[in-house]
Every structure is written in C-alpha cells, then in structure tokens.
C-alpha cells in the first residue's frame, strides 16, 4: 500500500492527494481536512484515514503517527511538510521501512530554514516531486506537470456559463467572496471537485491556492484571484508566476474583483481542455523506486 500524508487545513492538500491517489492503485490518504466528509461522499471509492479537524495538536500528532505505523506502507508520500505538519514525522521517518517521497509544493523559505529542512529532506527522502512549474522548489527534485483531480477527458466543455465564485479558503474569508458574488448577482455553492465547474465557467473568482490556480490554468478559464495570507503557502508569489502561464488577475478589493471578473468574460465557446495530468508521470516515477 502507498500512504499519502496530506494533513493540512482547507481543501488543497487533500485534493492534491486525491489527484495522485486516482492515478495509482491501493492508496490510502491521511487527512485532517474539515472537508474530508464531502470528498468521501463525492468519491466513495477512496481509502481515507480521517483525523477530525478539531483534534487538539498533540492528539492529532499522535493519531497521524499511529496511522503511518498501522498502515505499514510500501511507499510513504508526504505532501508539503517534510517533518509532518506538526513535526511529528521527524523521529518516525528513519524508523519505517518504506520508500519516502516528498511532494514539494511551495512553502515559506523561513520554515525551511527554521526547521533545517534542506538537510532533513536530503537525509530522509528517496524522491522529491514538484507538482508543476508554478511551484518554487528548494530541494533537489523531479518536476512533473501539475497534478489535477480530473483528467481532461472527464470534463465537460461547451459554452461557458458565467462567473463562478469559488470560496475555497478559510471561513473568515467567506465574507469577501460573498460580497463579490453579491456584486455580480451570482451565488456561491458548495461543490467538490471544483474543477468540474471551472470547465463550465466564463471566469473564476477565487484564491491563490495550488488547486484553484492549476485547475483554472488547465481549463483555460481566466482566474481573478486574491492572495490570502497563509502560514506556509505564498499565494501572491504563485499568482504572479501563474500570470505568466495564463489569464490570472490578482486583486484585493471586492469591487476590483467584480470589475476584473466582468472584464474577463468572452463570448462564445471555449476550446476543450487538453492538459496533461502530472499524476500519471508522478506515479511512474514513484513506481521506479520499487
């Protein structure tokens, strides 16, 4: 079995892990996302090990270690946080007889320095994969195309159906999205995976997280995005880089977002998405370790 350690708040870590899991066989995903139940309902075939989001820090650390031990994975794939989100994997990695793979999404370099991650990754990981050219990498790595939870042939094309406001961040950020949606006379709905809706949208208003950005670029849909502050992720930098690869407009104010969204609407049908899903290549490279 492969185990993907995908702890972290929000949708991002879990969605990226599910993308990889869909391209492989016999994969378990460890998550503490508050949205895990929604993902489980949408894809009941997934093997999810869920730590409740409200679990206190020490208990969550302990539970994560327990899942890793009990799963006895042949490959342990750790998303974003080399030592684990709470540092709990640090004493464990050397002790388990698994191939270790790090999924290297962008992280704050101050975290890398403060946790001594350069040497830690060199000492503990057999392979580092960077999921797409939009992520800044700090460790020796292999680069794949972006990882997406859908393949191009699973998405519906056709005539785009207007502005989609994707409130995928933290609950405290919802009010901003609600205000943008209100100005645009549209509504916010809860749906996962959001990429299904992006393919049918004229323009997306969202944040600067990995999945929102890569999914919009893959679908060729313009993204009007606000960079939200995160402890590890640097959304403003991702959006700046993404603007070199597609239609990405970075905004801050509600009115600015609404204006930018309306300006991005184009009449007529859009060409069907034809992206390469990097998860296939990622699975091939992981299998190469065995």
């Amino acid at each position, binding site marked *: 079995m492969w185990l993907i350690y995908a*702890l*972290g*708040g*929000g949708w*991002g*870590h879990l969605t990226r892990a599910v993308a990889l899991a869909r391209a492989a066989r016999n994969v378990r995903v460890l998550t*503490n996302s*508050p949205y895990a139940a929604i993902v489980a309902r949408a894809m009941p075939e997934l093997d999810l090990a869920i730590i409740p*989001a409200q*679990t206190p*820090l020490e208990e*969550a*650390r302990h539970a994560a270690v327990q899942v890793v031990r009990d799963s006895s994975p042949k490959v342990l794939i750790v998303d974003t*946080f080399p*030592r*684990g*989100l*709470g*540092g709990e994997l640090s004493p464990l990695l050397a002790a388990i007889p698994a191939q270790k793979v790090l999924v290297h999404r962008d992280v*704050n370099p*101050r*975290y890398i320095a*403060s*946790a001594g991650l350069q040497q830690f990754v060199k000492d503990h990981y057999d392979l580092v994969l960077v999921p797409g050219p939009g992520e800044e990498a700090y460790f020796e790595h292999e680069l794949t195309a972006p990882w997406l939870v859908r393949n191009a042939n699973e998405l519906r094309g056709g005539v785009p159906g207007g502005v989609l406001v994707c409130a995928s961040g933290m609950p405290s950020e919802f009010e901003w999205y609600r205000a943008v949606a209100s100005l645009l006379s549209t509504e916010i709905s809860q749906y996962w995976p959001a990429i299904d809706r992006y393919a049918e949208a004229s323009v997306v208003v969202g944040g*600067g*997280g990995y999945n929102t950005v890569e999914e919009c670029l893959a679908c060729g849909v313009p993204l009007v995005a606000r*960079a*939200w*502050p*995160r*402890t*590890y*992720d*640097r*959304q*403003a*930098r991702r959006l*700046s880089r993404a603007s070199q690869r597609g239609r990405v407009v*970075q905004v*801050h*104010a509600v009115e*600015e977002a609404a204006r930018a969204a309306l300006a991005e609407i184009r009449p007529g049908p859009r060409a069907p998405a034809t992206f390469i899903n990097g998860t296939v290549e990622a699975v091939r490279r992981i299998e190469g370790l065995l």
Partner: protein
Amino acid sequence: MTPGWKCPRRVGFLFPHECFRTTPVGCPDCNNGQVQDPFVSRSDRYGYPDYDIFPMDFTEADGADLVATSEEFESDMSGS
C-alpha cells in the same frame, strides 16, 4: 517605569513587529499607552487612491509571510 518592562504591543507601518521600547511614555505609536495594539488601529496602509500606484506584487499575503515567526511553524494542524 517598571525595571525590565517591555512593551507587549506590536507596531509597524506595513508589517507588525515587536515594539522594543522600554516605556510607553512619549510613544507616538500607542500614544502614551492609550492604544492597545497600534498596528490594528492603523488605517493608512490601504489608503492608496488607486491600485495602479500600489506595488501589486506586494500584498497582505506577503506581509503575513514576513511576520510569521519560527515558533508558529509546526504548531497548528490547520496550517496550509
């Protein structure tokens, strides 16, 4: 003035940082200790008349990146 007293407030223009004053007396930020957290009360950070004259690569997300201390890492299981 209490010996060894250190101001508990945050100060700063764009990014909050610790205040290193040893007394609030004469402090232009907290106005002699009358403002609990001067950084929160600042309203002139986003007072630019037009975003065209604001450096767009420089956002509140960058600000948060700069003020995160090492103690904040690996201590929150809802981080991202």
